[in-house]
C-alpha cells in the first residue's frame, strides 16, 4: 500500500497559520493604553465627586464667605451731657490712611508701600510690616490703619491716588473731643483704638480690627450704651475687595446719650477752690455727693489730665509728661488711692460705740493731753498715747466736736488702770465689723473703673499679714483713724451721707440717666442702696448733733458756711516717719460734712495729701458749701416772680 504523505495533504484542509496582523500585534499595548485612559479619568472623576458632591457644602460656605462681606455700620457714638444739659463730648471726623491687605497684589506691594510712605511720612518698613501681619491674619479684608489724623492736603492727595494704588483707602473716622478737658476727665475717661487682646475678646460682639472703644471712665463703663447697636451691610465684593452690590442691609440703632450726675459748673468751682488750697500737696480730692441719691455732683482729683491727649488719636508729644508725673494725674484719687482717715473716722467709732452701748451722750472722759498704756506683753513698759490738746472733761458731743483722741481711745480700746479694766471699749473686732458695715474695706460699686477697696484691719489680719500680735495700741490707733486703716475719699463721703440721710448706704453714681437723641429717658439710673447701716436712727441723730457742734465750737468751724448750716468733722492723719518726740512731721488733711443740717442734701469730702484738716481742708469745704447753696439761693431768687 502506497503511503500517502499526510503532511502534504494537511494544508489543504487545515487553516493556514497566518502572520498576526499588525493591529493584532499591538492590541495588547493599546489595551494597556485604554486602561490608562480610563484609570486617569477615573482618578479625576473620583476627586471631582469628592469635592463637588461629598464636600460641596464646605466649599459652598467658603465661596460665600469669599464673596460676601459684612460691613458693620456704626451709629455715631453716644453723646454725654452734664446734669444741666451741658455737652461734654463731641464727635469729630478725621481722615486716616489705610490699606486693605488683600487688595494689594504681590507684584505691586513695593510700589504701594513706597507711595503710601512718601505721602504719609510713615516708614516703608512699618507699612510693609503691618500689611504682612494682616495678610497672615484670618481677616485680610479689613483696612489696616497706617496713619491717623491726616491733614486735609495729604488726605486729598491720597484720595486722588487711590485709583492707581490698589488696596489703599482713605477712611473717615469719628474721634472724640472733650471740651471740658481736665475738668471732666475723671468722669468721662477716653476712647482708644481696640488693642489685640480686646479684639480677641470682643470680635464675637462685632468689634472690628480697627475699631474704637472706651478705655476708661464712663466711656468704658457705658461702652455698650454709647456704641449703640451696629447695623451692617452685606455686600458682594470682588477679589481685590471692591464692593459690587449691597445684598442686604440692616440700619444701625442709634446709641444712647448719657446724662451724668456731674454738675460741670460746680465742678469747675470745686477744682478752683481745691487747686488754691493744694500747697505742697501732691494730690487733692474733693467730692460732692447727693446724700439722697448717691449721685456725685462733683468729683475733683488733682492733678487732673486732659483726656483729649489720650483719646484716639493720641497726642504722642503730651503723653510722656502725663505718664511720668509723680502725682499720677491719670489716677482718680477719689477712688483709686487710699489713705488713713484720721479723725474723720471718729464718727464711725462714735456711732459704733453708741450702738453697742459702750458710750452714751453722757459718757464723760477726761483728757489730760495723753494716756499711758502699759504694754500687754512687756510688763513695765509704758506707751504714751497723745491727744492733740489737753481738752479736759468731755461728754460724747464735746468729745467728737473737739475731736479728742483720748475720748476715742476709751471708746475703742477701753481704759486700764493697774491691769484693771476701768472702761470697757469696743475692741478691734467690733469696730472692724462696724467699719465694714459702713462700706469700708470694699469697693463702693461706683460706675467708674479703677476703684480700690482700702483696708479695715483686725487682729487675724495683722497676724496673717504682718505676723505680729494685735495690741491695745493698735485698737487705739484704729479708733482714731490711724494705724493700718486706709480708706478712699469716696468711701468716707458715702458713709457720711449715710449718717446724714438716716442710714442708707448708697451706691455712688456718676450717670444720672440714659436718654435718646430727643432727650427722652431710655433708662433711669435708680438710686441704689447697698444696705442700711446698723446704727439706730437716734444714734445717727446724736452723731449728726455732735458733727453740728464740731462746726459750732470745734476745729470743724473752719468749714462753716455763711449760706447754710452744716455738720462736719475734720481729720489730720499723720503719716510717714515719726520724729524722735513721737510727733509726725507730715499729715493728710481731711474734712467731711454735709448740709443743710436739718434737711441734708449734699455731703462733701475734701482731702489734701499734705496739710492739717481744720487749717487746709476745712476752708475748701466751706467755699464749696457757700458756692453750692449760694448759687441755689440765686437761682431761687431769679426764679421767683
Amino acid at each position, binding site marked *: 500500500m502506497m503511503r500517502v504523505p499526510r503532511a502534504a495533504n494537511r494544508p489543504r484542509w487545515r487553516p493556514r497559520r497566518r502572520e498576526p496582523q*499588525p*493591529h493584532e500585534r*499591538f*492590541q495588547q*499595548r*493599546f489595551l*494597556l*493604553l*485604554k486602561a*490608562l*485612559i*480610563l484609570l*486617569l*479619568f477615573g*482618578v*479625576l*472623576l473620583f*476627586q*471631582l*465627586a469628592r*469635592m*463637588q*458632591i461629598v*464636600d*460641596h457644602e*464646605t*466649599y*459652598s460656605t*467658603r*465661596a*460665600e464667605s*469669599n*464673596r460676601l462681606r459684612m460691613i458693620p455700620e456704626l451709629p455715631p457714638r453716644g453723646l454725654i451731657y452734664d446734669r444741666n444739659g451741658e455737652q461734654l463730648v463731641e464727635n469729630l471726623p478725621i481722615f486716616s490712611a489705610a490699606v486693605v*491687605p*488683600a487688595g494689594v497684589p*504681590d507684584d505691586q506691594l513695593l510700589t504701594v508701600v513706597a507711595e503710601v510712605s512718601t505721602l504719609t511720612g510713615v516708614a516703608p518698613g512699618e507699612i510693609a510690616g503691618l500689611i504682612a501681619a494682616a*495678610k497672615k491674619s484670618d481677616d*485680610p479684608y479689613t483696612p489696616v490703619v497706617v496713619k491717623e489724623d491726616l491733614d486735609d492736603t495729604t488726605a486729598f492727595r491720597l484720595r486722588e491716588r487711590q485709583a492707581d494704588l490698589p488696596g489703599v483707602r482713605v477712611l473717615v473716622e469719628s474721634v472724640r473731643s472733650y471740651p471740658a478737658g481736665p475738668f471732666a476727665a475723671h468722669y468721662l475717661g477716653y476712647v482708644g483704638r481696640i488693642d489685640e487682646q480686646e479684639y480677641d475678646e470682643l470680635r464675637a460682639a462685632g468689634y472690628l480690627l480697627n475699631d474704637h472703644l472706651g478705655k476708661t471712665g464712663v466711656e468704658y463703663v457705658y461702652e455698650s450704651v454709647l456704641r449703640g447697636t451696629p447695623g451692617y451691610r452685606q455686600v*458682594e*465684593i*470682588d*477679589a*481685590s475687595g471692591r464692593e*459690587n452690590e449691597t445684598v442686604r442691609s440692616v440700619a444701625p440703632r442709634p446709641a444712647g446719650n448719657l446724662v451724668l450726675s456731674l454738675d460741670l459748673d460746680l465742678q469747675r468751682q470745686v477744682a478752683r477752690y481745691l487747686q488754691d488750697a493744694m500747697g505742697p500737696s501732691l494730690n487733692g480730692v474733693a467730692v460732692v455727693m447727693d446724700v439722697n441719691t448717691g449721685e456725685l455732683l462733683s468729683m475733683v482729683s488733682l492733678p487732673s489730665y486732659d483726656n483729649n491727649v489720650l483719646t484716639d488719636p493720641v497726642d504722642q508729644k503730651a503723653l510722656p509728661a502725663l505718664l511720668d508725673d509723680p502725682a499720677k494725674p491719670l489716677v482718680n484719687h477719689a477712688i483709686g488711692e487710699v489713705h488713713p482717715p484720721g479723725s474723720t473716722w471718729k464718727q464711725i467709732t462714735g456711732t459704733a460705740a453708741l450702738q453697742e452701748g459702750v458710750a452714751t451722750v453722757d459718757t464723760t472722759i477726761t483728757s489730760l493731753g495723753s494716756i499711758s498704756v502699759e504694754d500687754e506683753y512687756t510688763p513695765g513698759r509704758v506707751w504714751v498715747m497723745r491727744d492733740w490738746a489737753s481738752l479736759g472733761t468731755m461728754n460724747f458731743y464735746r468729745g467728737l466736736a473737739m475731736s479728742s483722741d483720748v475720748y476715742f481711745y476709751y471708746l475703742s480700746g477701753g481704759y486700764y488702770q493697774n491691769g484693771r479694766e476701768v472702761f470697757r471699749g469696743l475692741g478691734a473686732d467690733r469696730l472692724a465689723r462696724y467699719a465694714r458695715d459702713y462700706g469700708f474695706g470694699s469697693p463702693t460699686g461706683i460706675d467708674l473703673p479703677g476703684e480700690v477697696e482700702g483696708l479695715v484691719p483686725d487682729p487675724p489680719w495683722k497676724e496673717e499679714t504682718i505676723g505680729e500680735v494685735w495690741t491695745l495700741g493698735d485698737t487705739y490707733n484704729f479708733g482714731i483713724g490711724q494705724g493700718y486703716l486706709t480708706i478712699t475719699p469716696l468711701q468716707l463721703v458715702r458713709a457720711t451721707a449715710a449718717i446724714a440721710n438716716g442710714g442708707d448706704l448708697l451706691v455712688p453714681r456718676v450717670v444720672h440717666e440714659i436718654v435718646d437723641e430727643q432727650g427722652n429717658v431710655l433708662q433711669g439710673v435708680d438710686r441704689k442702696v447697698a444696705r442700711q447701716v446698723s446704727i439706730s436712727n437716734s444714734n445717727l441723730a446724736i452723731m449728726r448733733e455732735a458733727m453740728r457742734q464740731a462746726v459750732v465750737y470745734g476745729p470743724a468751724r473752719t468749714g462753716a458756711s455763711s449760706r447754710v448750716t452744716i455738720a462736719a468733722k475734720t481729720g489730720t492723719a499723720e503719716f510717714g516717719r515719726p520724729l524722735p518726740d513721737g510727733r509726725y512731721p507730715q499729715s493728710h488733711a481731711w474734712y467731711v460734712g454735709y448740709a443743710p443740717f436739718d434737711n441734708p442734701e449734699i455731703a462733701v469730702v475734701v482731702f489734701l495729701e499734705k496739710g492739717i484738716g481744720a487749717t487746709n481742708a476745712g476752708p475748701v469745704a466751706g467755699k464749696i458749701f457757700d458756692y453750692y447753696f449760694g448759687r441755689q439761693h440765686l437761682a431761687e431768687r431769679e426764679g421767683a416772680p
Partner: protein
Amino acid sequence: MNARLIRLRDFDPLLFLAAFALVGLGTLLIYSGSFSQFGSPDGLDFSHPVVRQAAFAVTGLVLALLFTRIDYRVLGSISIGLYIASVAALAFVLVAGEVTHGSRRWIEIGGTPVQPSELAKLVVVITLAKYLADHQEQMGSVRVFLTSLVIAAVPAALVFAQPDLGSAVIFAAVWFGMAVVGGAPWKHLGAVLGAAMVAVPFTFIGLVTDYQRERIALWLDPQRDPLGAGFQAEQADIAIGSGGMFGKGLTHGTQTQLDFLRTETTDYVFSVLGEELGFVGAILLFALFIVLLWRALRVAELSRDMFGRLLATGMVIYILLQAFINVGVNLGLLPVTGIPLPFVSQGGSSLIALLIGLGILQSILLRHRPFTFRNFYGG
C-alpha cells in the same frame, strides 16, 4: 512602501466632532471667564478672547484639513528639519522670550504671542515616531533606545529651563509611551524608570528652581501663603467644590466672576467649568476627551505602518497627559504647573498644534488601506 488608497469614506468625523465640541465648550468657558473683564464680544473684535479663540479654531481647522490632505509620510521625511527648528525656537525663547508668571515661555510673532513648546510637542511626536519606525529592526539596541530618549530629552530640558516642569513631564511621558508601543525592551524601559526615581530627589534639590520648589511646597500646603501663589490653588478648589452637581450656571460663578480665580481662561479654565457647569459639565468634558482619545487610538490600531501607529500613539499620550495634568492641578491633585487643557484653554499655539495633530491622524486614516483590487473596486 506599500501603495495606498486615499478613501474619503475613512475620514473619521467623530474625531473632529469630539475635538470641536471641546473647542466649543472651551469657548463658552473663555467667554464666561473673561466676562467680568471684557463683557460680550462686540462683532469681530480681535482683542476679545472669545473672538481670538474662535479665529484660532478656524485657522486650526483649515490647517487640520490641509494636513489631512497631505500624506503624513511626508512629515516623516522632513521630521529632522522640523525637530531642529523646534529646538532652536525653544532655545530662542529661553534667551529672548516674554516672561509671564515667573516663567519665560512666549515669543511675539507679528503681534501674536507664540508658545514654541506647544508646537514642539507635536514635532517631537512626529520625530520620535519616525525614528522608532525606521529602527524597528534594531529596537533591542541600546543605541537606538538612547537616541530616542535624547530626541525627547533635549526639548524637555529646554522647557524645564523656562521653567515649565509640566511640559517637560509631557515630553518624558510621550517618549515613554511611544517607546513602549514602539517595542523598546522592557529592561531598558525599567532601567530608565529606576534611574528617574533615583534622580528625582537630586533634581529637586539641585536643578529645580526656587520657583518650582515653591510651587510644589504650595501644592502640599496651599494655606502656606493664602494670598500669594497658594491663593490660586485654594480659590480653584473653592470654585470647583462650590459648583456642586449642576454648577452655578454660565457667567454666574462667583469665584470666576468676582476674580477670585486667576488665569481663569487658561490654566484654570477647568475650575470655571467646575464652578459654573458642575459635576455634570465635568462628566461631559471627560466623556468628550474619552471619545476623542478612543477615536485617536483607533487610528493607531488601524494604521498599516509603524510610523502612523506611533504618531497616533504619541498624540494620544500627549493629549491624555496634558488633560490629566491640567485637571489634576485644578483639583489640587498635582502641584501647580502652567499647562493648558487641550482644545479648551485659551491660547492659539496649543489649539493649532492639537488640530494639526488631529489632521495628521485623519491623514493616517485616509491612507490606512493597502492598494488591492478589492479595495480599488470597492467592497
